[in-house]
């Protein structure tokens, strides 16, 4: 018997799993259109490599991540690309993102596949590349690109490979059913990953509320070194960190990854995807999704093509729209609500709950935290949720961070147990978001400071150089005067060129001077603009403004004439500019006139 450890906290929510385990996995079929978001994983979004109207084959790569972390997206079936546009995607924000919409042609025609039956003959890097090219990112949680995860840092040896079949969240049964029905594929995938990593121990962890799955996996694992471990049912035993603690007694260091302690955790669905990618050359184009909840009459699991609208799956499961109150993507503990069912299945979608109002009722209004400590008793990360909440609510994010806010896995337990119905997790998410924004701003500020300082230094340098040059020129001029006669001829020879330069320089100088005057009054202009209502219009300021506007107009006019003379292509622009400046002058004049009219009473009133 394998030794098991316990982890802190945890809860036993109502499981609600039997509804969806009564039927075998059904094939969802091909809907009318498939919507494939370009970002279905952590990292950089993919870029479409097909054009609208193009015909694609099943399994053909249609989007790729040219650089940065990410995996490609494949066409789940053959058809034509209808559009590449922003559409609603599965995301808690309910916002749109870039998606490729594919109209299936019903032929389901495969592109060229490259199955490798004897992957052991290949280099490991080649296998990893094949996994990447199959577009595999984790199917169990965050959607981390699997090939990157399978290549731990050089100095880290993975000694324990865990296959996560705990599926601790209520309602979800996708992994359960997968393990019951596809145990051989799982073992095959696990073997590939084990071959890549060469761990000392391979464990498949299954909660003890899934005896059928455990039996199936044990049977499939017979004759291998793979352990199938049944762990006690307790949410969130499926959380990577908790599972690792249960199986090894070790803790993943804060801010680190499991590989730091020689462990790696993969979802069972990921294992199947790997097996199919290598052994059949099939990229990740389908997954098992649980459709459940009291608002559907035939809850169960579907093997659906990625991009299948959830609408479609719901109707296959017999949705009763009238009863539907809340649509949750994911489990009831960690999933997020959707504001429309018109959203595609992606690589990480494991469950859709179509809940009625009785099933997942609206939360009670938030009461005050009574520091009862139920939340800290139950928090699997041994945090102090109520402290985090106080600080998050009061906007003291630094303190929340100090109390390890970022170690929170957002498992939802604290909110679940809180007698005061405080949406704690939302506070943490908000706080985390704010902190990230602040950090980004800080970074930006630091860069701005650097650039500002660099500019100041540059200006100073230029100033000095100018000064130097001026001195030199003065000196040169003095010398020049001495040899006036001798130089005279040379000067006339060069005459034209000098003239031209001088004229330009004069122009620039003139502009500079005017601009200077302008700048000086610019702020005042603004002042007077803003001070429209203020009682004392500053006559001299207005006058200055007027002269400034006039000078600006002049410049523009001369520029326009120049441009006209040169037949330059920016004539029309300049014409517009001149018009604008005309207006400016007029405005200034009006303002001045108006001010002049009521200057006297206005000044009196300020006394």
């Amino acid at each position, binding site marked *: 018997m394998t030794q098991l450890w316990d982890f802190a906290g945890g809860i036993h929510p109502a499981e609600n799993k039997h509804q969806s385990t009564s039927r075998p996995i059904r094939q969802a079929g091909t809907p009318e259109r498939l919507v494939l978001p370009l970002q279905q994983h952590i990292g950089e979004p993919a870029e479409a490599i097909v054009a609208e109207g193009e015909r694609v084959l099943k399994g053909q790569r249609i989007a790729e991540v040219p650089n940065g972390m990410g995996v490609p997206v494949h066409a789940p079936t053959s058809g034509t690309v209808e559009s590449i546009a922003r559409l609603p995607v599965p995301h808690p924000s309910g916002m749109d993102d870039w998606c490729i919409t594919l109209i299936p042609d019903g032929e389901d025609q495969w592109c060229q596949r490259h199955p490798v039956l004897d992957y052991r003959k290949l280099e490991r890097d080649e296998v990893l590349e094949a996994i990447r090219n199959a577009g595999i990112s984790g199917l169990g949680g965050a959607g981390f690109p699997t090939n990157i995860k399978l290549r731990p840092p050089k100095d880290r040896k993975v000694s324990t490979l865990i296959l996560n079949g705990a599926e601790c969240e209520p309602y979800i049964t996708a992994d359960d059913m997968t393990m019951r029905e596809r145990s051989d594929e799982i073992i095959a995938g696990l073997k590939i990953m084990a071959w890549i990593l060469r761990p000392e121990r391979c464990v498949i962890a299954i909660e003890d509320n899934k005896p059928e799955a455990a039996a199936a996996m044990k049977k499939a694992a017979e004759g291998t070194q793979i352990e199938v471990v049944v762990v006690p049912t307790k949410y969130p035993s499926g959380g990577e960190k908790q599972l690792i603690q249960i199986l090894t007694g070790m803790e993943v260091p804060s801010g680190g990854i499991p590989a730091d302690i020689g462990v790696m955790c993969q979802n069972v669905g990921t294992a199947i995807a790997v097996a199919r990618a290598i052994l059949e050359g099939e990229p990740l184009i389908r997954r098992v999704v649980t459709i459940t909840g009291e608002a559907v009459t035939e809850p169960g699991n579907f093997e659906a093509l990625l991009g299948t609208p959830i609408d479609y799956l719901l109707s296959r499961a017999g949705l009763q729209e009238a009863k539907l109150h809340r649509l949750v993507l994911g489990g009831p503990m960690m999933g997020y609500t959707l504001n429309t069912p018109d959203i595609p299945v992606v690589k990480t979608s494991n469950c859709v709950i179509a809940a009625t109002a009785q099933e997942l009722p609206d939360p009670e209004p938030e009461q005050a935290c009574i520091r009862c400590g139920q939340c800290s008793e139950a928090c699997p990360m041994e945090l102090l949720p109520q402290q985090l909440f106080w600080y998050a609510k009061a906007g003291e994010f630094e303190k929340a961070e100090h109390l390890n806010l970022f170690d929170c896995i957002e498992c939802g337990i604290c909110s679940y147990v809180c007698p005061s119905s405080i949406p704690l997790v939302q506070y943490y998410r908000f706080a985390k978001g704010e902190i990230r924004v602040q950090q980004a701003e800080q970074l930006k500020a630091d860069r701005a400071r650097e650039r500002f300082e660099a500019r100041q230094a540059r200006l100073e340098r230029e100033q000095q150089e100018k000064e130097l040059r001026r001195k030199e020129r003065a000196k040169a001029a003095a010398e020049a005067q001495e040899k006036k006669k001798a130089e005279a001829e040379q000067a006339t020879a060069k005459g034209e060129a000098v003239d031209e330069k001088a004229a330009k320089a004069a122009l620039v100088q003139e*502009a500079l*001077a005017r601009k200077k005057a302008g*700048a000086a009054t*610019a*702020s005042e202009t*603004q002042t007077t603009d*803003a*001070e429209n*209502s*203020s009682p004392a219009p500053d006559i001299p300021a207005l006058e200055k403004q007027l002269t400034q506007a006039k000078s600006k107009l002049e410049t523009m006019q001369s520029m326009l004439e120049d441009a006209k003379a040169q037949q330059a292509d920016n004539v029309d622009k300049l014409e517009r500019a001149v018009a604008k400046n005309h207006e400016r002058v007029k405005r200034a004049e009006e303002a001045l006139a108006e001010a002049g009219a009521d200057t006297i009473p206005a000044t009196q009133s300020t006394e």
Partner: protein
Amino acid sequence: MATKTNSEIVREGLWTNNPALVQVLGLCPLLAVTSTVVNAIGLGLATLMVLMGSNLAVSLIRNFVSESVRLPAFVMIIASFVTCAELLMQAFTYELYQILGIFIPLIVTNCAILGRADAFASKNTPVPALLDGVMMGLGFLAVLIVLGAMRELIGQGTLFTDMDLLLGPMAADWGIRPLENYPDMLFMVLPPGAFVGLGLLIALKNSIDNQIKERRSARVTEPVTSGSKRVRVTGQVS
């Protein structure tokens, strides 16, 4: 520092920058001796005298002290005033002196006094400094009296008892007792009552201020010119 008008000085001392309620300084004597009105007045008057004297003196000598000995010098001035006050009280109101105990010499360390010397008197001419001293002293005295009255009334059900300690025999029967059979509420007499009482006074002042502010903002929306103080970082752009 911009010089303040006299009316500003008056308003600051008595209300907007009241040493006890706003600056929250001089708390020790304020809390320690306010169990009865007479104690409060005794100490308040002594403080007022010292504050006037020290503000005046500090303002007179403000240009002659070097930075490094500024503090000791001010403190010595205050201490000499206090010692004189102490000696005089010993000579003329001995019993009150005994009741007020070490809080007479501790006027030296009444933060409000040094605070004023440092923040105001050392930067202003003698006349405003003296006025500031008077007003701050009066503001302080007023709070002392109110707190004393509050604690005496709630704590013992009496008001103005034992005024003879300060004013001589003629005030012996000034004490009043509005309610016969009032059960003494020792909480107010003991230290906790002093803290809570002052807390209530501060809150009262805050809420009055808030109300005034609300009423005023309801009447006139002050014209604020947004961005009127901007400067151009990049200097003159040509």
